[in-house]
């Protein structure tokens, strides 16, 4: 199984993208499956460690939380831009968060989450100390942001991936 399909999730994703971009017909399914098999095998040369998923049922929950969180921070940042940052009272700043995970996939997904959420920007992650440097647009309470990243996102990602 491992030899034929070294990256099953990548292959599945490629097949879905192929079918979405063409049409859902048996012919396209066979063609897409062939492309997915070859392309996911080519990936082995680049990425030697395949992803393992632990608690798959947490993925839809995390996605739902994300859609709401991203929508809320969109409106927060939009309002701050329009009223000139609470008329000059807004304060932005850097915060440091000690992450527990060393999983590359979890870190990559966390980077996508942080960047997709307006109001937080990922500036760097120090691999020696495991500290994430984050720029926050509206820094009211530093502890709230640490709590959000660590207890909401990092915890969910670790449960799914580790």
């Amino acid at each position, binding site marked *: 199984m491992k030899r034929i399909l070294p990256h099953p999730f990548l292959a599945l994703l490629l097949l879905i993208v192929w079918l979405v971009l063409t049409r859902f017909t048996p012919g396209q399914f066979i063609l897409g499956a062939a492309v997915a098999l070859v392309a996911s095998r080519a990936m082995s040369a680049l990425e030697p460690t395949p992803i393992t998923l632990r608690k798959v049922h947490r993925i839809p929950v995390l996605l739902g939380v994300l859609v709401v969180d*991203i929508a809320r921070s969109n409106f927060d940042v*939009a309002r701050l*831009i*329009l009223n000139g940052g609470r008329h000059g009272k807004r304060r932005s700043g850097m915060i440091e968060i000690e992450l527990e995970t060393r999983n590359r996939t979890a870190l990559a997904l966390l980077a996508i989450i942080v*960047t*997709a959420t*307006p109001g937080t920007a990922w500036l760097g992650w120090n691999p020696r100390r495991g500290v994430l*440097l984050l720029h926050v*647009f509206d820094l009211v309470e530093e502890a709230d942001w640490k709590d959000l990243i660590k207890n909401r996102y990092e915890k969910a990602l670790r449960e799914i991936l580790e």
Partner: protein
Amino acid sequence: MTELPLWAAIAVAFFLILGAGLTLIGSIGLLRLRSFYDRLHAPTLGTSWGALATILASVIFFSISERRLVLHDLVIGFFIMCTTPVTLMLLGRAALYRDRSENTPVVTPSDTE
């Protein structure tokens, strides 16, 4: 192509205006915000819900007018989500590198890389 029913037209218009409005506000922010790090946040309005709302409007419009599920716009959204961090992190790190080399005190004191 068939005529859109009223509810669909309202939904499409709502999402289009929402997406375009958020992207516009993001662009205004990019123009008006003072510091470089603040300006990093503004365009993410356009790449998150700005793009998502526009894509939803497109999915609804083409799915109804062509009478089949048209989902390929979602692939655009997926790739925007995955590729934005690359450019934003590159810009952020470039600014950080510049500030560190000029000893501008924006970095937290414990960060001595």
